[in-house]
């Protein structure tokens, strides 16, 4: 439950080495490398077109990168390059130890299936499923994402944007993944709904010891969610470090510009 502290020789959960994705001659992302340790939450920020979403999709295996390694510390076999895994292995990882929270939420939900069915889907992939147990787990997870369990049989299309996002989070976390990829988790939500979602994500992350990689253009979101930050521009990493240090004492010209461009309230 408590994040492990100060262990210098801890194995990174994820090692990204020289990851490059080109779209023809145009750079998607180039030579991105970093290590993510268990329990760490990393934010990736940049403007539209900076390559942050390309990077996220390349890491998660949605778009095959042209070059590089994405090494994950698997439960069974230790660190493995997920890009060299067979497709069944990678998809299995995507259903168990990895989770991907899409934006908009409807991209990560089955809109014609009830809330309970959405949460239960990952559980039903394993043999000999038990309806009562799946339903109990679905109800429990609805509670954890602050949705009344009286909504368990409602379809997500009847939910507000914030509820859809919380449902998507429940659907992803139900199998207890160790690494969560998030694409603009608060995107498209009202400010008041964002705050609740951020608080929820902080709480769940702390309880489950989750590691996460969060792509967003919203610096306020990463300040509240991320331990560390990577700033991207034109497909390259321009700066990285402790989140509040990068935001309060940016070293690179572009980061200074990005930080000073945020409207103060």
């Amino acid at each position, binding site marked *: *439950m*408590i*994040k492990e*502290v*100060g262990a210098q020789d801890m194995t990174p959960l994820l090692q990204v080495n020289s990851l490059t994705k080109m779209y023809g001659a145009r750079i998607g992302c180039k030579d991105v490398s970093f290590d993510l*340790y268990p*329990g*760490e939450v990393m934010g990736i920020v940049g403007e539209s077109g900076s390559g942050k979403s390309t990077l996220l999709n390349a890491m998660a295996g949605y778009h095959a990168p042209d070059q590089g390694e994405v090494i994950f510390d698997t439960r069974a076999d230790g660190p493995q390059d997920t890009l060299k895994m067979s497709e069944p292995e990678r998809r299995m990882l995507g259903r168990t130890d990895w989770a991907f929270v899409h934006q908009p939420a409807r991209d990560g939900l089955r809109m014609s299936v009830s809330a309970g069915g959405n949460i239960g889907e990952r559980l039903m992939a394993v043999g000999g499923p038990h309806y009562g147990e799946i339903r109990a787990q679905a109800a429990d997870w609805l509670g954890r994402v602050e949705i009344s369990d009286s909504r368990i049989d409602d379809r997500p299309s009847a939910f507000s944007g914030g509820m859809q996002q919380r449902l998507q989070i429940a659907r992803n976390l139900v199998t207890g993944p160790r690494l969560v990829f998030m694409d603009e988790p608060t995107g498209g939500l009202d400010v*008041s709904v964002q*705050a*609740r979602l*951020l*608080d929820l994500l*902080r709480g769940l992350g*702390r309880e489950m010891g989750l590691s996460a990689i969060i792509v967003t253009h919203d610096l306020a979101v990463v*300040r*509240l969610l991320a*331990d*560390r930050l990577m700033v991207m521009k034109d497909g390259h990493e321009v700066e990285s*470090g*402790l*989140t*509040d*240090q990068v935001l*309060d*004492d940016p*070293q*690179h*010209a572009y980061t*200074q*510009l990005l930080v*000073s461009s945020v409207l103060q309230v």
Partner: protein
Amino acid sequence: MIELENVSKSFTLHNQGSAVIPVMERVNLTVGAGECVGLVGASGAGKSTLMRLIYGNYLAAAGRVMVGDLDVAQAAPRHIIARRRETLGYVSQFLRVVPRVAALDVVAEPLLAVGTPLEAARDKAASLLAQLNIPERLWSLSPTTFSGGEQRVNIARGFAYAYPALLLDEPTASLDAKNPRHGADPG
């Protein structure tokens, strides 16, 4: 506990003609365990900058910033985060938390971060809020919604977990004459 060796800091404003603003040069400071050190100086003398360098919020341009056995000027983010969680607290007059979260939960969070059970963390938070003269009916409100809330909740949050080292950067700056006394005597 805290040891600064030849620490220098300047800011380079890349977007304003790369102006370089020197703030401090070759500062040395040693604070032993159990010591209480006050920093005084005029506005702009670098008091807050020094605090932020120790907390890792600002990046030292040169020198070593040791907190225990960790050089904050060089350490990986996760090690600084761990040090902040377990060892080094920081209280300023500014509160940076998720909006609309109840004061009680804001104060309890540092305890939850080190694995304190929810009930125990909330009990401790409640006693701190009471000590700081915040009426119980306000505990479920966001600290930004009541007068003096941010500052007092910030102090309570800073003292919720018993950090071996604590940085206090004008935590009582905007409190009225009656309240600082409570703030100064956290028990």
